[in-house]
């Protein structure tokens, strides 16, 4: 089936002796050290890309643990003290019947980060394993991950805005918890991880049989 879908091998830039600038997109002959247009360094494949991906990814995962364990918001309302974690907040919202908002928070704070972890890990794992790649599909996946990653910060934004606005002393006060920082770090790390990934690696497997 696979062979049936991909009857002919893909010609990669490297196989064609070319190298593209990742910055401006100009194609140079292989071996050109610097881009003639923008001057950025050219390399056919980023060295250590996967290492960096994995490193950022692990850091993001580590940061994600306290982001879920520790409270995100510290709410004090009329002396009543409340701490809510991300999941706890979702459950609270569901309890109060705000299913829409609960879904948004759940998506932005749980599904997307976790999905990113899996997506990046999957991409990093699949690269270099011949016969398994679907070049186009993986590239699309990568683009989605990179695009959507920034929206994970919505939680952090909410917390930041609430903390800035709701400072009414006794009546109500909202402060960011440890989880907010952790979550922000986690998102940042995963974004870096996604950025570190060199999507050209996806195609290496396609050309492998030729090599």
């Amino acid at each position: 089936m696979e062979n049936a879908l991909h009857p002919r091998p893909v010609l990669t830039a490297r196989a064609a002796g070319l190298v593209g600038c990742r910055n401006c997109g100009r194609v140079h002959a292989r071996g050109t050290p610097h881009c003639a247009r923008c001057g950025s360094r050219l390399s056919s494949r980023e060295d250590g890309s996967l290492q960096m991906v994995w490193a950022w990814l692990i850091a993001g995962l580590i940061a994600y643990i306290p982001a879920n364990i520790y409270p995100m918001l510290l709410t004090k309302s009329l002396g009543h003290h409340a701490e809510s974690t991300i999941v706890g907040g979702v459950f609270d919202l569901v309890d109060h019947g705000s299913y829409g908002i609960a879904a948004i928070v759940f998506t932005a704070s749980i599904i997307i980060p976790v999905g990113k972890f899996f997506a990046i890990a999957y991409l990093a794992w699949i690269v270099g394993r011949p016969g398994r790649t679907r070049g186009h599909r993986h590239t699309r996946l990568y683009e989605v991950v990179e695009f959507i990653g920034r929206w994970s910060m919505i939680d952090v934004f909410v917390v930041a805005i609430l903390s800035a606005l709701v400072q009414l002393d006794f009546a109500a006060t909202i402060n960011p918890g440890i989880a907010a920082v952790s979550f922000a770090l986690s998102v940042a790390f995963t974004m870096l991880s996604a950025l570190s990934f060199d999507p050209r690696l996806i195609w290496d497997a396609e050309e492998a049989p030729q090599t």
Partner: protein
Amino acid sequence: MTEHSPAEMEIEPPRRSFWRNLSVVWLVPVIAVVVSLGIAWQSYADRGVLVQLEFQNATGIAPGETVVKFREVTVGTVETVGFTADLARVIIGARIDKAVAASLPPDALFWVVRPQLSARGVSGLSTVLSGVYIDAAFTPVAGSSAKSFKGLEEAPLVRPGRQGTRITLRAKNGNQISPGAPVLYRGVEVGQLEAPRLAPSGDGVIVNAFIASPHDARLTTATRFWDLSGFAVSIGASGLKLDVGNLAALVSGGIAFDTIFVGGQPIGEDTVFDLFPEESAARESVFNSVGANAVRLSVEFTESVNGLSSGAAVMYRGLRVGEVVAIGAEASATPAGRSVVLRATIAVDPGAIGLSANMPADETLNFIDGLVADGLRAQLATTSIFSAKLVIELNPVTDAPPARLIRRPGDDPLMPSVESDLPNFTATAEGVLERVNALPIEEVMAQAISLMASIEDIAREEGTRRAPDALVKLLDETRGLIGKDDTQALPGEIRQAVAELRGVVADLRAAGTVDRLASAIASADKVAGDLAAASGDFPQLVTGLRDLAAKVNALPAEDLVASATQVLDSARALIGTDEARALPPALTGALNEVQAAVAEYRASGATARLTEALVSANQAAADVSAASADFPALVDQLSAVATKVDALPAEDLVVAATKVLESADALIGTEEARALPPALTAALGEVQAALKELREGGAVANTNAALASARNAADAVAKATEALPDITARIERLVSQAGTLVDAYGARSDFNAQTLAVLREVSAAARSVAQLARTIERNPNSLLIGR
């Protein structure tokens, strides 16, 4: 074109070592891990110690939210809320700061602070918004590691570490005592009460109190506590007294204390004090410092001890020397049989009667025994005239029968008692009050006023003013009558008659009549003496008569006076007539006849008969004398009757009498009445003629016979008088019956009405007499002839 060129040399760069190949970025997760682990370890290391708090329930406690505070600083948080194994109680797991937990002693107190509203104010208000919290109180002990505590249901009265003294109070009941009620010293709150609880014996209430540090130094054995709760109103000889505690004490109860006397011993922890119901009782309690060294005595009473209660005072001449400890009844066997005596047990403090406070009981009893020998007796007495409370007084009784303190083994010595005069006093006072109450002051006043008004009316009456004039005229007329020759001739005639009588007397004397007469007089004298004795009762009679006079006085006498005046006028007019003036000669003639008759009489030896008659009379007098012995009783009865009569309203009678007089007046005033004297004169003339005929017709002999009959009659009277005592008795009965009768006929009775009717009939009879007089005038002979 490059196909046949040698393959481009694959230049493999020397394989970099693993470490060289490692990206710097790997530092980031490493650092993240390190930081995370660091944070985790720190939070674990900083985590507090979990302690178990056991509560009855977990009202308001929320895991993760409820905090534990010590001195109002948060030192922990509740983590879990669970149950004991048997679900009987709640176990709260609280995470306490390590530093604090390290010095938690096993006796640390935990309790839940909730909002509480009481008369003393609001506490725990902050918990309304923030939710309850668990408060902790303990004295930190370094190195302690207790992990399980029993929580209190309520805030403790005394927090550990607070300086002060804890005491125990004994009260009759816990009505007015509420937990946390203040303990006041001169109005300043110096401590608090805990919750009252029943004494183990069930006959009282025990409550712990805590007196804070600087003030607990005031507590000595001389301190007395009393209840401040509510109002205290007392009415006594000193007047109305109202005690009101402060508002908090009023609502939630409170107690106050004071050191009543100097010289108390300092107290230790958990000293027991009595809680008195009121301040006065607390202060008085000092005087019955019974228990220490008081001697107990029994007193038996035969009268009612109603009003005597346990705790009542025992007074010695007005000084409190002890109190009644108990009252009871006891059946005792006496020679007359079993009887119940009321017994009061009293405690007498030797210190109060001037002995040494520490004197042995035996010596105290000896001393009291000496007092008893000198006449000291127990007696019930009232405390005041308004109160029914009784006290026992120990009073010296001068004329008491000798007695001693009766000492009985196994029982209190018996002190002799005397009957009190309580009931007499009460009865007397009541009697006096009743009498005063029954006085008819209003009626007396009304009668006095009406009497004065009547007197005033009489004095003002014209008839009263005219009466003297009429009298003067009457006197003038009389003088005119006397001045006439015929009248002046009368003495001569009378003198002759007297001479004749003297002759008769002489005869009588000759016949020894005088002795009889003397004895008769003696009898009469005796009668007089008896009467005099009887008159001893007169004062009463006089009093009754005086009352009657007063009543009569009150009667409307104007009419009477007017009528009397008219009668006098009429009489004067009658005397003024010629016929009246013609009377004296006729009289003179009649006297002459009489004189002649007497002369005849004397001649016929009538004196002897007379003497016999006198003897009979004498005997009769003696009998009367004997009968008169019963007079005093009769007089009494009469007096009673007079009193009764006195009570009768006689106004109507007087009015009727007045009418009678008026009728009489009218009678006299008629022509017929004026015509009477000539008729009488004529009649006398006839009489004179008749006498003459009689004398000539041997009337004297008839007279003798008549005198004999008279003597027989006198004898019969004498016999009859022998029955006089009986008659007297009957009269007495009659009088008493009359008394009851009069009694029965009160004001406005039928009797009065009938009396009035009788008087009216008398009035009519007088009119008939007037008609009769007219008839006689027309035919004088009918008088003698009998037709």
